[in-house]
């Protein structure tokens, strides 16, 4: 192919030149000879329609005629729209069926029809929206099977969308649709109707008019607001009073707005740092709610009754020195704060209210308040409620984050969903733009990397680096665990020698320092390994951090329940564990403060003043969230031994909120990494539920079922295990009488009997298995549906092309009517040759005179108009000849 014709082609097809593609001899795919220009004078035998269709004779009669029709059409199409097939062939070569070129190549009529296709109008036209919601309303009404109020013609309904030609706005049609919708709305209940209207993407005025219209006559009086009539005469005073009261109420309401906790703080954080950092603070708020719930229960059923009936103190109260705030020992020891203070007696209190577990059967008002039972049941119920809430919220966010059949549409999702509309600051907005740009570039680079597979050597190197870092990180975690174990053993021995209060703080300090330092080490190690995606990097960091924390906590749990119980024989070991957990919590808070101070404030000052860097330190969401989860785990671990620990945790969380917020606003900037906030909060909740809550539950169950409580203190001092309290109570109930005999039965057959547990877990497994199967089936259906949609899309493209060729034909017929006799004779083929000839002339003319791009049929008119200046025409004619000759020459080469 020569350069010249290609240039011609590019120019003309850009200028809306279908005609050029169809008829210039040089326009064809490479590899085809110039002689094909002749072949197109008759139907192309290679065209898909004429060659692939089955023979009409072996079809039924109906098919026969249809076949004929198709053949006729395809023959015409072969004649007129050869370019169509050519392009289709090209598209088939590239494996994808696309529309012919861009939409600019279509004629105006085709474009109009294209634009009025229902799938396109729905995003734009009011009529389409109305009819869509009409359809939905009909569905809703049918589902709720309400009586039909209006006498509608049913057959008129389903095809509403087909009349959806918005470009030539037919007001009447829209009105018709509207009235249909109104009638449908009328048949709905008021609440349902309002709900429906609220969800419609229409403007308020339109919604209002729809509502006014769809109001049943009975309710119409509400619609008349009548501002004018109210001011008329006697009602004025009353109205003024009502108005004053009303506005007073409104004032109260709007001041309530200010009471919503941390509303502006959260808005500010969201505005400056985006959703990702906000998710940390929202998680903190969730934890606060969990603790508040737990604390409420504990206060109501344990701490309150115990505080109302204080037992006699065993000895003189030690004087508070201030160190107790850190150690939790000393004068705090014999208070409601710790397990040891609670009595094992029955408090002399009549049954005050419905307690958990059906303890207070109706009519048995004289049942006393049994403290051990209350202790056991309150903690149990508190944990049960927490568990239910956690699992529910986790399942909810799982359902939102992971949809069935969701495939990787990462580019589209990033572009459509990554802008955070909460951001209100110019600077933050610029930062967000930078982040999105980096993210998009990373995605593209990743995509290109995936297109070209990596070499084996590189992959090996990568795997080696990955394995090494994992090994090192796991080694670090193991080392930390061993260090904690060794140190705690050392503490047990040294504490026996000299029981100093300040020495109690050493173990929490060491553990806190390990907790603080090891993640930094892991982060340094992580810099060594190459990761494909930044999201994976975040997950890996979280995973390593979690393993570390779990290892340390596991060692500590062993230390408390395995070693301390033995060592502290004769003392109140529960009190000691409670105090220890309190110390860990406090130390965690202090170290977090120091970390915030040095890691964020001092680092910011250093990097700004000394290193002269513009960037502030990033807010590490993953690490901070894991710290929160760690703190929460400590709290849950300690609830049994120190019922007021949730209160301490609440105070800590409140302080953390304000400190982190201040530090964040002053010292930090949003993380550069893209952060899927919603996925992340799902991950956070999962982490909170699975390792943290589950581990705690196992720990507590072990403590309740297996560990012997200390003999000198606490509500269970006479029993072998804490669980004994429940058994004793059941035995007590058995003796109580026939009215509560079902409870021992329940206990005997459902709780003690293992068969029931097996049955329940088997059922659960069956349900899970069924669900997995259902999901698998849905996935298959989704795949099939997707295939079907893409087939439909191809059909659509085919129809559009067909439509276009028909329009094109019409246009040509009109033009040929105006066309003067051509040099090749009056036959059909001749007309085509005529077109070809004109086209080449126009092409040449276009080349010469870019702004002048006459339409094929208009060319003669143009020429006629130019008769007046004959010399120019002559010159043009020469140019045309020259261009033709040169094109031929180039094409022949």
């Amino acid at each position: 192919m020569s350069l010249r014709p290609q240039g011609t082609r590019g120019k003309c097809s850009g200028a809306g030149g279908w005609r050029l593609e169809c008829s210039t001899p040089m326009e064809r795919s490479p590899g085809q000879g110039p002689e094909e220009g002749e072949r197109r004078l008759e139907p192309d035998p290679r065209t898909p329609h004429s060659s692939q269709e089955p023979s009409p004779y072996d079809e039924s009669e109906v098919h026969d005629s249809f076949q004929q029709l198709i053949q006729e059409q395809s023959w015409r199409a072969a004649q007129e729209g050869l370019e169509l097939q050519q392009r289709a062939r090209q598209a088939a070569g590239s494996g994808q069926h696309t529309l012919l070129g861009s939409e600019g190549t279509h004629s105006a009529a085709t474009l109009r029809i294209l634009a009025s296709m229902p799938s396109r109008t729905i995003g734009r036209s009011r009529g389409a929206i109305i009819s869509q919601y009409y359809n939905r309303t009909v569905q809703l009404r049918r589902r709720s099977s309400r009586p039909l109020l209006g006498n509608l013609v049913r057959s008129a309904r389903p095809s509403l969308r087909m009349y959806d030609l918005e470009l030539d706005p037919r007001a009447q049609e829209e009105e018709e649709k509207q009235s249909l919708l109104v009638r449908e709305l009328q048949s709905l209940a008021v609440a349902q109707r309002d709900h429906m209207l609220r969800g419609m993407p229409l403007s308020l005025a339109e919604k209002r008019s729809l509502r006014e219209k769809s109001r049943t006559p009975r309710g119409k009086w509400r619609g008349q607001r009548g501002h004018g009539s109210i001011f008329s005469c006697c009602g004025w005073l009353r109205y003024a009073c009502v108005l004053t009261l009303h506005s007073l109420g409104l004032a109260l309401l709007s001041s309530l707005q200010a009471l919503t906790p941390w509303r502006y703080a959260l808005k500010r954080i969201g505005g400056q740092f985006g959703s990702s950092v906000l998710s940390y603070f929202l998680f903190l708020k969730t934890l606060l709610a969990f603790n508040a719930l737990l604390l409420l229960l504990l206060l109501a059923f344990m701490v309150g009754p115990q505080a109302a009936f204080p037992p006699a103190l065993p000895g003189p109260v030690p004087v508070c020195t201030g160190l107790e705030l850190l150690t939790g020992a000393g004068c705090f020891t014999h208070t409601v704060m710790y397990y040891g203070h609670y009595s094992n007696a029955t408090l002399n209190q009549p049954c005050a209210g419905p307690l958990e577990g059906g303890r207070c059967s109706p009519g048995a008002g004289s049942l006393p308040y049994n403290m051990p039972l209350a202790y056991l049941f309150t903690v149990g119920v508190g944990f049960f409620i927490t568990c239910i809430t956690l699992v529910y919220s986790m399942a909810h966010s799982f359902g939102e984050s992971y949809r069935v059949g969701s495939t990787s549409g990462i580019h589209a999702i990033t572009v459509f969903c990554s802008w955070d509309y909460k951001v209100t600051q110019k600077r933050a907005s610029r930062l967000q733009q930078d982040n999105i740009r980096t993210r998009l570039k990373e995605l593209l680079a990743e995509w290109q990397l995936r297109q070209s597979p990596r070499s084996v050597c590189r992959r090996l190197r990568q795997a080696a680096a990955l394995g090494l870092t994992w090994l090192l990180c796991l080694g670090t975690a193991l080392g930390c665990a061993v260090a904690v174990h060794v140190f705690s053993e050392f503490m047990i021995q040294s504490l026996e020698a000299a029981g100093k209060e300040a020495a109690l703080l050493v173990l929490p300090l060491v553990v806190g320092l390990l907790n603080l330092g090891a993640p930094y080490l892991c982060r340094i190690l992580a810099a060594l390994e190459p990761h494909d995606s930044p999201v994976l990097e975040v997950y890996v960091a979280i995973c390593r951090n979690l393993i570390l924390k779990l290892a340390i906590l596991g060692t500590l749990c062993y230390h408390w329940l395995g070693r301390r119980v033995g060592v502290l024989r004769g003392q109140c070991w529960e009190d000691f564990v409670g105090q220890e957990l309190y110390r860990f919590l406090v130390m965690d808070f202090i170290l977090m403060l120091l970390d915030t101070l040095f890691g964020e404030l001092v680092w910011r000052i250093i990097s700004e003043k000394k290193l002269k860097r513009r960037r502030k330190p990033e807010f590490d969401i993953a690490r901070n969230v894991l710290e929160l989860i760690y703190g929460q785990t400590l709290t849950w671990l300690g609830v049994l031994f120190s019922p007021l620990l949730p209160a301490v945790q609440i105070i800590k969380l409140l302080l953390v909120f304000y400190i982190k917020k201040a530090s964040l606003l002053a010292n930090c900037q949003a993380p550069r990494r893209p952060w899927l906030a919603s996925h992340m909060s799902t991950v956070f909740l999962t982490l909170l539920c699975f390792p943290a809550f589950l581990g705690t539950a196992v720990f507590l169950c072990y403590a309740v079922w297996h560990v012997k409580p200390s003999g000198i203190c606490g509500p269970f001092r006479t029993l072998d295990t804490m669980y004994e309290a429940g058994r004793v109570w059941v035995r007590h109930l058995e003796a109580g009488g026939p009215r509560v005999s079902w409870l021992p039965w329940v206990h005997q057959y459902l709780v003690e009997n293992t068969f029931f547990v097996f049955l329940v877990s088997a059922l659960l497994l069956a349900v899970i298995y069924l669900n997995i199967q259902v999901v698998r089936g849905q996935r298959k259906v989704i795949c099939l549906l997707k295939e079907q949609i893409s087939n439909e899309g191809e059909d659509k493209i085919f129809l559009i092309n067909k439509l276009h060729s028909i329009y094109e034909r019409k246009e040509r017929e009109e033009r040929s009517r105006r066309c003067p006799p051509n040099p090749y004779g009056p036959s059909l083929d001749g007309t085509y040759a005529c077109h070809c000839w004109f086209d080449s002339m126009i092409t040449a003319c276009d080349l010469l005179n870019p702004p002048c791009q006459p339409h094929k049929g208009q060319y003669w008119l143009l020429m006629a108009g130019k008769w007046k200046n004959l010399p120019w025409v002559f010159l043009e004619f020469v140019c045309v000849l020259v261009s033709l000759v040169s094109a031929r020459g180039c094409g022949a080469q």
Partner: protein
Amino acid sequence: MGGSGSRLSKDLLAEYQDLTFLTKQEILLSMYVVSAPHLVDEQQARSGNEHTGTPIAERANRSPLSARAHKRFCELLPQEQQSVEASLRAQVSFEQILSLPELKANPFKERICRVFSTSPTRDSLSFEDFLDLLSVFSDTATPDIKSHYAFRIFDFDDDGTLNREDLSQLVNCLTGESEDTRLSASEMKQLVDNILEESDIDRDGTINLSEFQHVISRSPDFASSFKIVL
């Protein structure tokens, strides 16, 4: 108090509540937000001295509503339009709306205003349009209506589908319009190709509303980020 609160009659307020996703408080607040231009200046001043590193914690505690609601929606308007009916019919030009702190930094602010404007010339918002806007961007709005309006915002040429030009314009908005911040032509082409490949289910070269909603439904982050907190 008793200013614009009483001007909005009870029935009208109830109606707004029924027809939008806003609560009573939010409707009143929106009245204040639209009507307090001095607040905008204050906010700008705040964000202006952000760099100096003055303690910011207490700045977040914005003054109570009654104190900052000096100027109201109606006071932006000429004297004769201050009755309820007139103030509801009155139009506020885009410049005033765009200077709101909530929209100021948004690259899509012009599109948002255009999509929600119901005036024939599409250059101003009435109070009800503004309520519509806030309703769609509120917490409680359904994902359906959010994605519908997101589609219309992204459809820059208002033709009912997202074609290649719309997509590249959208990407430009996301990355910054200027020469040095936008993606290169080849990157842009690649990106648009990938987006179409991923989301154009029926392969017609454009993304229509249902395809768009399909993509959005896979991203739960959309509903949490497509919000404007008043």
